[in-house]
Protein backbone atom coordinates (compact mmCIF):
# COMPACT_ATOMS: atom_id res chain seq x y z
CA UNK A 1 0.00 0.00 0.00
CA UNK A 2 1.38 3.42 -0.81
CA UNK A 3 1.73 5.92 1.95
CA UNK A 4 -0.82 8.14 0.26
CA UNK A 5 -3.42 5.41 0.37
CA UNK A 6 -2.49 4.63 3.94
CA UNK A 7 -2.78 8.26 4.93
CA UNK A 8 -6.30 8.37 3.56
CA UNK A 9 -7.25 5.26 5.47
CA UNK A 10 -5.61 6.49 8.62
CA UNK A 11 -7.33 9.82 8.46
CA UNK A 12 -10.60 8.02 8.13
CA UNK A 13 -9.72 6.19 11.32
CA UNK A 14 -9.00 9.44 13.04
CA UNK A 15 -5.27 8.95 13.49
CA UNK A 16 -3.61 12.27 14.04
CA UNK A 17 -0.17 11.38 12.76
CA UNK A 18 -1.47 10.61 9.29
CA UNK A 19 -1.33 14.24 8.29
CA UNK A 20 2.37 14.63 9.13
CA UNK A 21 4.93 15.45 6.48
CA UNK A 22 2.77 15.55 3.40
CA UNK A 23 5.69 15.85 1.00
CA UNK A 24 7.29 12.70 2.31
CA UNK A 25 4.00 10.87 2.24
CA UNK A 26 3.51 11.70 -1.42
CA UNK A 27 6.81 10.20 -2.52
CA UNK A 28 7.45 7.24 -0.20
CA UNK A 29 6.32 3.78 -1.18
CA UNK A 30 6.15 1.21 1.56
CA UNK A 31 8.29 -1.91 1.13
CA UNK A 32 6.35 -5.07 0.46
CA UNK A 33 5.81 -7.28 3.47
CA UNK A 34 6.20 -11.00 2.87
CA UNK A 35 3.44 -13.59 2.90
CA UNK A 36 2.24 -15.07 6.17
CA UNK A 37 1.19 -18.69 6.56
CA UNK A 38 -0.03 -19.54 10.02
CA UNK A 39 2.58 -18.08 12.32
CA UNK A 40 5.33 -18.12 9.71
CA UNK A 41 6.48 -15.16 7.64
CA UNK A 42 8.64 -15.46 4.56
CA UNK A 43 10.33 -12.17 3.80
CA UNK A 44 12.38 -11.65 0.66
CA UNK A 45 14.65 -8.62 0.41
CA UNK A 46 15.85 -6.55 -2.55
CA UNK A 47 18.61 -8.12 -4.62
CA UNK A 48 22.22 -7.10 -4.15
CA UNK A 49 25.79 -8.14 -4.72
CA UNK A 50 27.52 -8.38 -8.12
CA UNK A 51 24.87 -8.21 -10.83
CA UNK A 52 22.18 -8.59 -8.18
CA UNK A 53 23.14 -12.25 -7.77
CA UNK A 54 21.89 -12.39 -4.18
CA UNK A 55 18.29 -12.01 -3.08
CA UNK A 56 18.28 -12.86 0.62
CA UNK A 57 15.26 -14.05 2.54
CA UNK A 58 14.28 -15.02 6.05
CA UNK A 59 11.58 -17.45 7.03
CA UNK A 60 10.57 -16.83 10.63
CA UNK A 61 8.03 -18.62 12.84
CA UNK A 62 6.74 -17.01 15.99
CA UNK A 63 4.35 -17.61 18.86
CA UNK A 64 2.80 -15.55 21.58
CA UNK A 65 1.19 -16.62 24.79
CA UNK A 66 0.10 -15.59 28.23
CA UNK A 67 3.04 -15.35 30.66
CA UNK A 68 5.48 -15.74 27.77
CA UNK A 69 4.96 -12.78 25.50
CA UNK A 70 6.29 -12.92 21.94
CA UNK A 71 8.83 -15.55 21.02
CA UNK A 72 10.51 -17.07 17.99
CA UNK A 73 9.93 -20.74 17.19
CA UNK A 74 12.28 -20.99 14.26
CA UNK A 75 14.33 -18.89 11.85
CA UNK A 76 15.80 -19.93 8.51
CA UNK A 77 17.94 -17.89 6.13
CA UNK A 78 18.94 -18.17 2.50
CA UNK A 79 21.08 -15.94 0.31
CA UNK A 80 19.26 -16.61 -2.93
CA UNK A 81 16.03 -18.29 -3.95
CA UNK A 82 17.81 -21.35 -5.33
CA UNK A 83 19.58 -22.03 -2.02
CA UNK A 84 18.05 -24.41 0.52
CA UNK A 85 16.83 -22.82 3.74
CA UNK A 86 19.51 -22.89 6.45
CA UNK A 87 18.21 -23.10 10.00
CA UNK A 88 19.68 -20.58 12.42
CA UNK A 89 17.39 -20.54 15.46
CA UNK A 90 15.16 -23.23 16.93
CA UNK A 91 13.72 -21.05 19.68
CA UNK A 92 14.51 -17.58 21.02
CA UNK A 93 12.64 -15.80 23.78
CA UNK A 94 12.77 -13.93 27.02
CA UNK A 95 12.71 -16.75 29.54
CA UNK A 96 11.91 -14.20 32.23
CA UNK A 97 12.28 -10.55 33.20
CA UNK A 98 13.82 -9.99 36.63
CA UNK A 99 13.18 -6.65 38.34
CA UNK A 100 15.00 -6.04 41.65
CA UNK A 101 14.57 -2.66 43.35
CA UNK A 102 17.56 -0.90 44.88
CA UNK A 103 16.25 -1.10 48.46
CA UNK A 104 16.33 -4.92 48.23
CA UNK A 105 12.65 -5.44 47.65
CA UNK A 106 10.50 -6.05 45.76
CA UNK A 107 12.22 -8.48 43.38
CA UNK A 108 9.78 -9.30 40.64
CA UNK A 109 9.89 -12.04 38.01
CA UNK A 110 7.61 -10.39 35.50
CA UNK A 111 7.06 -13.35 33.19
CA UNK A 112 6.98 -16.37 35.46
CA UNK A 113 4.92 -15.16 38.41
CA UNK A 114 1.93 -13.59 36.74
CA UNK A 115 -0.27 -14.27 33.73
CA UNK A 116 0.51 -11.14 31.79
CA UNK A 117 -0.75 -10.90 28.23
CA UNK A 118 0.43 -9.01 25.21
CA UNK A 119 -1.55 -5.83 24.71
CA UNK A 120 -3.55 -5.46 21.52
CA UNK A 121 -1.54 -3.85 18.74
CA UNK A 122 -3.07 -1.01 16.76
CA UNK A 123 -2.55 0.76 13.45
CA UNK A 124 -0.63 3.39 15.40
CA UNK A 125 1.77 0.68 16.58
CA UNK A 126 2.22 -0.65 13.06
CA UNK A 127 2.93 2.77 11.59
CA UNK A 128 2.37 3.69 7.98
CA UNK A 129 4.04 0.61 6.48
CA UNK A 130 3.55 -2.13 9.07
CA UNK A 131 0.76 -4.55 9.83
CA UNK A 132 -0.68 -6.28 12.85
CA UNK A 133 -0.63 -10.08 13.05
CA UNK A 134 -2.91 -12.02 15.33
CA UNK A 135 -4.13 -8.82 16.89
CA UNK A 136 -1.00 -8.59 19.05
CA UNK A 137 2.16 -8.67 16.93
CA UNK A 138 3.50 -5.82 14.81
CA UNK A 139 5.29 -6.81 11.60
CA UNK A 140 7.41 -4.19 9.89
CA UNK A 141 10.09 -4.07 7.25
CA UNK A 142 12.54 -1.42 8.38
CA UNK A 143 14.81 0.23 5.87
CA UNK A 144 16.27 3.13 7.81
CA UNK A 145 19.65 1.76 8.99
CA UNK A 146 22.80 1.79 6.92
CA UNK A 147 24.15 -1.63 6.02
CA UNK A 148 27.30 -0.29 4.41
CA UNK A 149 28.71 2.88 2.87
CA UNK A 150 31.58 3.11 0.38
CA UNK A 151 32.22 6.70 -0.67
CA UNK A 152 29.21 7.53 -2.84
CA UNK A 153 27.85 3.97 -2.80
CA UNK A 154 25.38 2.99 -0.13
CA UNK A 155 23.00 0.25 0.85
CA UNK A 156 20.43 0.45 3.56
CA UNK A 157 19.75 -2.68 5.58
CA UNK A 158 16.36 -4.27 5.19
CA UNK A 159 15.12 -5.80 8.41
CA UNK A 160 12.10 -7.96 9.03
CA UNK A 161 10.91 -6.94 12.50
CA UNK A 162 8.36 -8.61 14.75
CA UNK A 163 7.51 -6.87 17.98
CA UNK A 164 4.83 -6.91 20.62
CA UNK A 165 4.19 -5.34 23.99
CA UNK A 166 3.67 -7.23 27.23
CA UNK A 167 1.28 -5.44 29.55
CA UNK A 168 2.90 -6.16 32.92
CA UNK A 169 0.46 -4.24 35.13
CA UNK A 170 1.99 -0.76 35.49
CA UNK A 171 4.91 -1.63 33.24
CA UNK A 172 5.15 -2.44 29.54
CA UNK A 173 7.87 -4.53 27.93
CA UNK A 174 8.48 -4.31 24.22
CA UNK A 175 9.78 -7.62 22.87
CA UNK A 176 11.39 -7.17 19.48
CA UNK A 177 13.04 -9.57 17.05
CA UNK A 178 14.77 -8.31 13.89
CA UNK A 179 16.10 -10.32 10.95
CA UNK A 180 18.30 -8.38 8.55
CA UNK A 181 19.13 -9.07 4.93
CA UNK A 182 22.83 -9.62 5.74
CA UNK A 183 21.85 -12.44 8.11
CA UNK A 184 22.14 -10.45 11.34
CA UNK A 185 19.54 -10.93 14.07
CA UNK A 186 18.62 -8.44 16.76
CA UNK A 187 16.91 -9.41 20.02
CA UNK A 188 15.64 -6.49 22.04
CA UNK A 189 13.76 -5.80 25.23
CA UNK A 190 12.38 -2.32 25.81
CA UNK A 191 11.11 -1.24 29.23
CA UNK A 192 8.56 1.56 29.43
CA UNK A 193 5.25 2.83 30.84
CA UNK A 194 4.42 3.62 34.48
CA UNK A 195 6.88 3.45 37.37
CA UNK A 196 5.93 1.18 40.27
CA UNK A 197 3.18 3.24 41.94
CA UNK A 198 4.06 2.26 45.50
CA UNK A 199 7.65 3.52 45.13
CA UNK A 200 7.72 5.41 41.81
CA UNK A 201 10.99 7.19 42.53
CA UNK A 202 13.01 4.13 43.55
CA UNK A 203 15.78 3.06 41.17
CA UNK A 204 15.70 -0.50 39.91
CA UNK A 205 16.85 -2.88 37.19
CA UNK A 206 14.93 -4.61 34.44
CA UNK A 207 16.98 -7.66 33.50
CA UNK A 208 15.92 -9.31 30.26
CA UNK A 209 16.72 -13.01 30.68
CA UNK A 210 17.16 -14.46 27.21
CA UNK A 211 17.16 -18.12 26.26
CA UNK A 212 18.34 -18.76 22.72
CA UNK A 213 18.24 -22.31 21.40
CA UNK A 214 20.62 -21.97 18.48
CA UNK A 215 20.36 -24.66 15.81
CA UNK A 216 22.82 -23.36 13.25
CA UNK A 217 22.48 -25.63 10.24
CA UNK A 218 20.28 -27.87 12.37
CA UNK A 219 20.40 -29.01 15.98
CA UNK A 220 23.61 -31.07 16.14
CA UNK A 221 27.25 -30.13 15.54
CA UNK A 222 27.28 -26.69 17.16
CA UNK A 223 30.20 -25.67 19.36
CA UNK A 224 30.42 -22.74 21.79
CA UNK A 225 33.45 -20.49 22.06
CA UNK A 226 34.38 -17.47 24.20
CA UNK A 227 36.05 -14.55 22.51
CA UNK A 228 38.55 -12.38 24.37
CA UNK A 229 40.32 -9.20 23.32
CA UNK A 230 43.49 -8.42 25.26
CA UNK A 231 45.24 -5.06 25.23
CA UNK A 232 48.08 -4.55 25.84
CA UNK A 233 49.29 -7.95 24.74
CA UNK A 234 53.00 -8.58 24.35
CA UNK A 235 54.02 -4.93 24.17
CA UNK A 236 52.24 -1.74 25.31
CA UNK A 237 51.20 -1.03 21.72
CA UNK A 238 50.00 -4.49 20.78
CA UNK A 239 46.65 -6.23 21.22
CA UNK A 240 45.43 -9.74 20.56
CA UNK A 241 42.18 -11.65 20.14
CA UNK A 242 41.67 -15.24 21.19
CA UNK A 243 38.93 -17.79 20.66
CA UNK A 244 38.73 -20.63 23.15
CA UNK A 245 36.20 -23.32 23.89
CA UNK A 246 33.54 -21.83 26.16
CA UNK A 247 34.28 -22.74 29.79
CA UNK A 248 36.81 -25.31 28.67
CA UNK A 249 34.23 -26.92 26.42
CA UNK A 250 31.68 -27.85 29.07
CA UNK A 251 28.47 -26.26 30.36
CA UNK A 252 29.03 -23.18 32.46
CA UNK A 253 29.07 -19.42 32.61
CA UNK A 254 31.17 -16.42 31.65
CA UNK A 255 31.42 -12.86 32.91
CA UNK A 256 31.36 -10.12 30.30
CA UNK A 257 34.17 -7.59 30.53
CA UNK A 258 33.93 -4.34 28.57
CA UNK A 259 37.72 -4.16 28.32
CA UNK A 260 37.82 -7.60 26.73
CA UNK A 261 35.02 -7.13 24.20
CA UNK A 262 33.75 -10.59 25.15
CA UNK A 263 31.13 -12.47 23.23
CA UNK A 264 29.93 -16.03 22.73
CA UNK A 265 30.44 -17.56 19.31
CA UNK A 266 28.41 -20.52 18.11
CA UNK A 267 29.99 -22.39 15.23
CA UNK A 268 28.61 -25.25 13.21
CA UNK A 269 31.29 -27.86 12.72
CA UNK A 270 30.07 -29.04 9.34
CA UNK A 271 28.86 -25.93 7.54
CA UNK A 272 31.45 -23.96 5.57
CA UNK A 273 31.17 -21.05 3.18
CA UNK A 274 32.60 -20.79 -0.33
CA UNK A 275 36.05 -20.06 1.08
CA UNK A 276 36.05 -23.13 3.27
CA UNK A 277 35.51 -21.22 6.50
CA UNK A 278 33.17 -22.55 9.17
CA UNK A 279 29.95 -20.58 9.63
CA UNK A 280 29.35 -18.99 13.03
CA UNK A 281 27.14 -16.51 14.83
CA UNK A 282 28.54 -14.03 17.37
CA UNK A 283 26.37 -13.08 20.36
CA UNK A 284 27.13 -9.39 20.92
CA UNK A 285 25.58 -7.83 24.04
CA UNK A 286 23.79 -4.48 23.64
CA UNK A 287 23.95 -3.05 27.14
CA UNK A 288 24.65 -0.08 29.37
CA UNK A 289 26.51 -2.01 32.07
CA UNK A 290 26.63 -5.20 34.13
CA UNK A 291 24.11 -6.21 36.75
CA UNK A 292 25.16 -8.62 39.49
CA UNK A 293 22.53 -9.37 42.10
CA UNK A 294 22.21 -11.79 45.02
CA UNK A 295 20.56 -14.37 42.74
CA UNK A 296 22.98 -17.04 41.48
CA UNK A 297 21.92 -16.81 37.84
CA UNK A 298 22.96 -13.15 37.79
CA UNK A 299 26.55 -13.81 38.79
CA UNK A 300 27.44 -14.26 35.13
CA UNK A 301 26.29 -12.60 31.91
CA UNK A 302 26.37 -15.65 29.66
CA UNK A 303 25.57 -19.28 30.29
CA UNK A 304 25.81 -22.09 27.75
CA UNK A 305 24.09 -25.42 28.30
CA UNK A 306 23.44 -28.49 26.25
CA UNK A 307 19.85 -28.68 25.04
CA UNK A 308 17.48 -30.78 27.11
CA UNK A 309 13.69 -30.60 26.97
CA UNK A 310 12.21 -28.82 29.97
CA UNK A 311 15.35 -26.82 30.74
CA UNK A 312 13.78 -23.48 30.03
CA UNK A 313 13.71 -21.43 33.25
CA UNK A 314 16.48 -18.85 33.51
CA UNK A 315 16.21 -18.71 37.30
CA UNK A 316 17.22 -22.37 37.38
CA UNK A 317 20.02 -22.22 34.83
CA UNK A 318 22.63 -22.96 37.48
CA UNK A 319 20.95 -26.34 38.06
CA UNK A 320 21.18 -27.22 34.37
CA UNK A 321 24.97 -26.94 34.41
CA UNK A 322 26.33 -30.41 35.11
CA UNK A 323 29.53 -30.78 33.13
CA UNK A 324 28.13 -31.84 29.78
CA UNK A 325 30.08 -30.88 26.67
CA UNK A 326 28.98 -27.85 24.67
CA UNK A 327 31.20 -28.80 21.74
CA UNK A 328 29.82 -30.41 18.58
CA UNK A 329 26.37 -30.76 20.06
CA UNK A 330 23.06 -28.88 20.49
CA UNK A 331 23.70 -25.69 22.48
CA UNK A 332 21.45 -23.24 24.31
CA UNK A 333 22.76 -19.75 25.07
CA UNK A 334 21.47 -17.77 28.05
CA UNK A 335 22.12 -14.06 28.42
CA UNK A 336 21.07 -11.36 30.87
CA UNK A 337 20.39 -7.88 29.42
CA UNK A 338 20.26 -5.36 32.27
CA UNK A 339 18.43 -2.05 32.01
CA UNK A 340 19.26 0.35 34.83
CA UNK A 341 16.33 2.66 35.50
CA UNK A 342 16.99 5.73 37.61
CA UNK A 343 13.74 7.70 37.88
CA UNK A 344 13.82 11.29 36.66
CA UNK A 345 11.33 14.06 36.25
CA UNK A 346 10.60 12.83 32.72
CA UNK A 347 9.08 9.67 34.22
CA UNK A 348 6.19 11.56 35.78
CA UNK A 349 5.03 12.73 39.17
CA UNK A 350 2.52 12.04 41.93
CA UNK A 351 -0.52 14.18 41.29
CA UNK A 352 -3.23 14.21 43.94
CA UNK A 353 -2.35 10.73 45.11
CA UNK A 354 -1.97 9.19 41.65
CA UNK A 355 1.11 8.52 39.56
CA UNK A 356 0.91 10.49 36.32
CA UNK A 357 3.46 9.85 33.62
CA UNK A 358 5.30 7.24 31.58
CA UNK A 359 8.95 6.28 31.50
CA UNK A 360 10.59 6.53 28.11
CA UNK A 361 11.65 3.24 26.50
CA UNK A 362 15.06 1.87 27.54
CA UNK A 363 16.54 -0.78 25.26
CA UNK A 364 18.86 -3.73 25.77
CA UNK A 365 19.48 -7.09 24.18
CA UNK A 366 21.75 -8.90 21.80
CA UNK A 367 22.91 -8.75 18.22
CA UNK A 368 23.59 -12.12 16.64
CA UNK A 369 26.15 -11.26 13.99
CA UNK A 370 27.05 -13.81 11.30
CA UNK A 371 30.70 -14.70 10.73
CA UNK A 372 31.64 -16.41 7.47
CA UNK A 373 28.00 -16.91 6.58
CA UNK A 374 28.93 -15.03 3.41
CA UNK A 375 32.17 -15.48 1.51
CA UNK A 376 32.15 -11.83 0.45
CA UNK A 377 30.82 -8.49 1.70
CA UNK A 378 27.05 -8.94 1.89
CA UNK A 379 25.14 -7.30 -0.95
CA UNK A 380 28.13 -5.22 -2.05
CA UNK A 381 28.17 -5.04 -5.85
CA UNK A 382 31.91 -4.68 -6.40
CA UNK A 383 33.32 -8.00 -5.14
Amino acid at each position, binding site marked *: MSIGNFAAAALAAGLAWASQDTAWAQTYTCPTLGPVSGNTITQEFPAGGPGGMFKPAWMVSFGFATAKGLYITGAWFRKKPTDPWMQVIYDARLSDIFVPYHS*GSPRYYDL*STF*SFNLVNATAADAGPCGRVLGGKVVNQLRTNALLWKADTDVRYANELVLWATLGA*ANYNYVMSYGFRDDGQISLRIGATS*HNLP*SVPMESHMHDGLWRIDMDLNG*APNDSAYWMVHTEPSGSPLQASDTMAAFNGGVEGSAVWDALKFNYVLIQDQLLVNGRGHKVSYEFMPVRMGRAVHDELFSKADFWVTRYHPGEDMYKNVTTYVNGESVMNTDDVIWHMSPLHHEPR*DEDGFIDNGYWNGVAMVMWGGLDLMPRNLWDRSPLYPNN
Partner: protein
Amino acid sequence: MKSPLFPAAPAAFAALILAIAPTPVFCAAAAIPAQRGVVSDDVPAAVAARLRDLVQPRTMAAGVGRLVFVGAEPARIKGERSTGPEVAGAPKAYLVTQYRYADDTTIYTTIDAATNRVLARREARHVPTPITAEELAAARELALGDARVREALGADANKLTVEALGLYSEDRKDRIYGHRAMSLLFRKGALYRAGLEVIVDLTTRSVTVTRRAPNNEHR
Protein backbone atom coordinates in the same frame (compact mmCIF):
# COMPACT_ATOMS: atom_id res chain seq x y z
CA MET B 1 17.47 -13.51 48.41
CA LYS B 2 16.14 -10.52 50.21
CA SER B 3 12.64 -10.46 51.55
CA PRO B 4 10.17 -8.77 49.25
CA LEU B 5 7.87 -8.12 52.16
CA PHE B 6 10.04 -6.87 54.96
CA PRO B 7 13.09 -5.04 53.70
CA ALA B 8 15.25 -3.02 55.99
CA ALA B 9 13.25 0.19 56.25
CA PRO B 10 14.80 2.68 53.80
CA ALA B 11 14.89 6.04 55.51
CA ALA B 12 14.38 7.85 52.22
CA PHE B 13 10.87 6.56 51.88
CA ALA B 14 9.70 7.36 55.38
CA ALA B 15 7.36 4.45 55.11
CA LEU B 16 4.25 4.64 57.16
CA ILE B 17 3.39 1.09 58.04
CA LEU B 18 -0.27 1.21 58.86
CA ALA B 19 -0.72 -2.42 59.54
CA ILE B 20 1.93 -5.07 59.38
CA ALA B 21 -0.11 -7.76 61.01
CA PRO B 22 -1.99 -9.58 58.27
CA THR B 23 -5.66 -10.18 58.57
CA PRO B 24 -6.37 -13.89 58.19
CA VAL B 25 -9.55 -14.53 56.24
CA PHE B 26 -9.99 -18.27 55.93
CA CYS B 27 -12.76 -19.53 53.73
CA ALA B 28 -14.94 -22.45 54.54
CA ALA B 29 -13.92 -25.59 52.70
CA ALA B 30 -16.86 -25.48 50.35
CA ALA B 31 -16.64 -27.09 46.95
CA ILE B 32 -15.98 -24.65 44.13
CA PRO B 33 -16.12 -25.28 40.39
CA ALA B 34 -12.97 -26.09 38.47
CA GLN B 35 -11.47 -22.91 37.10
CA ARG B 36 -11.46 -21.58 33.60
CA GLY B 37 -7.79 -20.68 33.87
CA VAL B 38 -5.54 -18.93 31.47
CA VAL B 39 -5.71 -19.72 27.80
CA SER B 40 -2.53 -19.08 25.86
CA ASP B 41 -2.98 -17.16 22.69
CA ASP B 42 -1.34 -19.99 20.79
CA VAL B 43 -3.69 -22.66 22.12
CA PRO B 44 -7.29 -22.49 20.90
CA ALA B 45 -9.78 -21.95 23.69
CA ALA B 46 -11.57 -25.21 22.94
CA VAL B 47 -8.30 -27.15 23.14
CA ALA B 48 -7.38 -25.49 26.41
CA ALA B 49 -10.78 -26.35 27.82
CA ARG B 50 -10.35 -29.98 26.78
CA LEU B 51 -6.90 -30.14 28.38
CA ARG B 52 -8.24 -28.51 31.53
CA ASP B 53 -10.98 -31.10 31.78
CA LEU B 54 -8.43 -33.88 31.39
CA VAL B 55 -6.29 -32.80 34.32
CA GLN B 56 -8.57 -30.91 36.67
CA PRO B 57 -10.96 -32.48 39.17
CA ARG B 58 -14.60 -31.58 38.65
CA THR B 59 -14.80 -30.05 42.08
CA MET B 60 -12.23 -29.37 44.71
CA ALA B 61 -11.81 -27.98 48.16
CA ALA B 62 -11.27 -24.27 48.58
CA GLY B 63 -8.27 -22.71 50.34
CA VAL B 64 -5.04 -24.65 50.44
CA GLY B 65 -6.74 -27.71 48.97
CA ARG B 66 -7.04 -25.99 45.65
CA LEU B 67 -5.45 -27.19 42.45
CA VAL B 68 -5.21 -24.35 39.94
CA PHE B 69 -5.24 -24.84 36.19
CA VAL B 70 -2.62 -22.30 35.19
CA GLY B 71 -2.65 -22.84 31.45
CA ALA B 72 -1.62 -24.85 28.44
CA GLU B 73 0.94 -24.31 25.73
CA PRO B 74 2.22 -26.19 22.72
CA ALA B 75 4.94 -28.67 23.74
CA ARG B 76 7.68 -28.53 21.19
CA ILE B 77 9.22 -31.87 20.23
CA LYS B 78 12.64 -31.27 18.76
CA GLY B 79 13.89 -33.29 15.82
CA GLU B 80 17.47 -33.72 14.80
CA ARG B 81 17.26 -31.39 11.84
CA SER B 82 14.62 -29.00 10.64
CA THR B 83 14.31 -27.68 7.13
CA GLY B 84 11.28 -25.53 7.76
CA PRO B 85 8.51 -24.76 10.19
CA GLU B 86 7.51 -27.90 12.03
CA VAL B 87 3.89 -27.07 12.16
CA ALA B 88 1.36 -26.25 9.62
CA GLY B 89 -1.42 -27.61 11.78
CA ALA B 90 -1.90 -28.32 15.44
CA PRO B 91 1.00 -29.19 17.74
CA LYS B 92 1.63 -32.86 18.47
CA ALA B 93 1.53 -32.35 22.21
CA TYR B 94 0.64 -29.79 24.84
CA LEU B 95 2.22 -28.89 28.14
CA VAL B 96 -0.32 -28.25 30.88
CA THR B 97 0.66 -26.40 34.04
CA GLN B 98 -1.20 -26.69 37.36
CA TYR B 99 -0.43 -25.31 40.79
CA ARG B 100 -1.19 -27.07 44.07
CA TYR B 101 -1.58 -24.74 47.05
CA ALA B 102 -1.13 -27.37 49.75
CA ASP B 103 2.59 -27.85 49.20
CA ASP B 104 3.53 -25.03 46.79
CA THR B 105 3.97 -27.47 43.95
CA THR B 106 3.76 -26.85 40.22
CA ILE B 107 2.72 -29.80 38.08
CA TYR B 108 3.74 -30.04 34.45
CA THR B 109 1.90 -32.60 32.32
CA THR B 110 2.67 -33.31 28.69
CA ILE B 111 -0.36 -34.60 26.83
CA ASP B 112 -0.50 -36.15 23.37
CA ALA B 113 -2.71 -33.90 21.29
CA ALA B 114 -4.26 -36.70 19.25
CA THR B 115 -4.86 -39.37 21.90
CA ASN B 116 -5.08 -37.32 25.12
CA ARG B 117 -2.53 -39.74 26.56
CA VAL B 118 -0.25 -38.40 29.28
CA LEU B 119 3.27 -38.56 27.89
CA ALA B 120 5.10 -37.15 30.89
CA ARG B 121 4.36 -35.64 34.27
CA ARG B 122 6.68 -33.95 36.71
CA GLU B 123 6.33 -31.86 39.83
CA ALA B 124 8.49 -28.99 41.08
CA ARG B 125 8.26 -27.26 44.45
CA HIS B 126 8.83 -23.57 45.14
CA VAL B 127 9.16 -22.41 41.55
CA PRO B 128 7.70 -19.21 40.10
CA THR B 129 4.35 -20.07 38.57
CA PRO B 130 2.03 -17.56 36.90
CA ILE B 131 -0.87 -16.38 38.99
CA THR B 132 -4.12 -16.67 37.05
CA ALA B 133 -6.87 -14.18 36.36
CA GLU B 134 -9.16 -16.11 38.69
CA GLU B 135 -6.64 -15.81 41.51
CA LEU B 136 -6.33 -12.10 40.83
CA ALA B 137 -10.11 -11.84 41.13
CA ALA B 138 -9.96 -13.64 44.47
CA ALA B 139 -7.17 -11.34 45.65
CA ARG B 140 -9.14 -8.29 44.57
CA GLU B 141 -12.14 -9.47 46.56
CA LEU B 142 -9.99 -10.04 49.64
CA ALA B 143 -8.32 -6.66 49.34
CA LEU B 144 -11.47 -4.65 48.74
CA GLY B 145 -13.05 -6.41 51.69
CA ASP B 146 -10.29 -5.09 53.92
CA ALA B 147 -11.17 -1.88 55.79
CA ARG B 148 -7.59 -0.59 55.61
CA VAL B 149 -7.56 -0.87 51.83
CA ARG B 150 -10.95 0.79 51.47
CA GLU B 151 -9.89 3.59 53.73
CA ALA B 152 -6.72 4.12 51.73
CA LEU B 153 -8.58 4.17 48.43
CA GLY B 154 -11.35 6.40 49.69
CA ALA B 155 -14.29 7.17 47.46
CA ASP B 156 -12.53 5.66 44.43
CA ALA B 157 -12.42 2.16 45.93
CA ASN B 158 -15.09 0.61 43.72
CA LYS B 159 -14.15 2.52 40.57
CA LEU B 160 -10.57 1.38 40.28
CA THR B 161 -9.20 -1.35 38.06
CA VAL B 162 -7.13 -3.79 40.08
CA GLU B 163 -3.92 -5.16 38.58
CA ALA B 164 -1.23 -7.27 40.18
CA LEU B 165 2.42 -8.20 40.19
CA GLY B 166 3.24 -11.73 41.32
CA LEU B 167 5.58 -12.17 44.26
CA TYR B 168 8.09 -14.94 44.75
CA SER B 169 10.77 -15.53 47.33
CA GLU B 170 13.49 -18.14 47.78
CA ASP B 171 14.14 -16.97 51.33
CA ARG B 172 12.72 -19.47 53.79
CA LYS B 173 12.46 -16.71 56.40
CA ASP B 174 10.25 -14.64 54.13
CA ARG B 175 6.59 -14.62 55.05
CA ILE B 176 5.58 -15.38 51.49
CA TYR B 177 8.06 -18.22 50.99
CA GLY B 178 6.11 -21.13 49.52
CA HIS B 179 2.99 -19.02 49.25
CA ARG B 180 0.88 -17.67 46.41
CA ALA B 181 1.17 -13.92 46.85
CA MET B 182 0.81 -10.79 44.78
CA SER B 183 1.10 -7.04 45.10
CA LEU B 184 -2.03 -5.21 43.96
CA LEU B 185 -2.10 -1.98 41.97
CA PHE B 186 -5.12 0.28 41.69
CA ARG B 187 -5.70 2.10 38.44
CA LYS B 188 -8.00 4.94 37.40
CA GLY B 189 -7.69 5.36 33.64
CA ALA B 190 -4.02 5.94 32.95
CA LEU B 191 -3.28 6.88 36.56
CA TYR B 192 -2.11 4.54 39.31
CA ARG B 193 -2.74 5.08 43.03
CA ALA B 194 0.65 6.07 44.37
CA GLY B 195 2.34 5.29 47.67
CA LEU B 196 0.07 2.37 48.50
CA GLU B 197 1.30 -1.22 48.71
CA VAL B 198 -1.28 -3.94 49.15
CA ILE B 199 0.02 -7.49 49.31
CA VAL B 200 -2.41 -10.38 49.22
CA ASP B 201 -1.24 -13.83 50.26
CA LEU B 202 -3.74 -16.27 48.80
CA THR B 203 -2.23 -19.23 50.64
CA THR B 204 -3.02 -17.71 54.04
CA ARG B 205 -5.77 -15.48 52.61
CA SER B 206 -4.29 -12.47 54.33
CA VAL B 207 -3.80 -8.84 53.35
CA THR B 208 -0.88 -6.57 54.24
CA VAL B 209 -1.19 -2.81 53.72
CA THR B 210 1.64 -0.30 53.62
CA ARG B 211 1.17 3.42 52.95
CA ARG B 212 3.95 5.81 52.09
CA ALA B 213 3.86 9.58 52.09
CA PRO B 214 3.81 11.09 48.56
CA ASN B 215 7.37 11.59 47.40
CA ASN B 216 8.23 13.26 44.12
CA GLU B 217 11.93 13.47 44.85
CA HIS B 218 14.54 11.26 43.27
CA ARG B 219 18.31 11.12 43.08
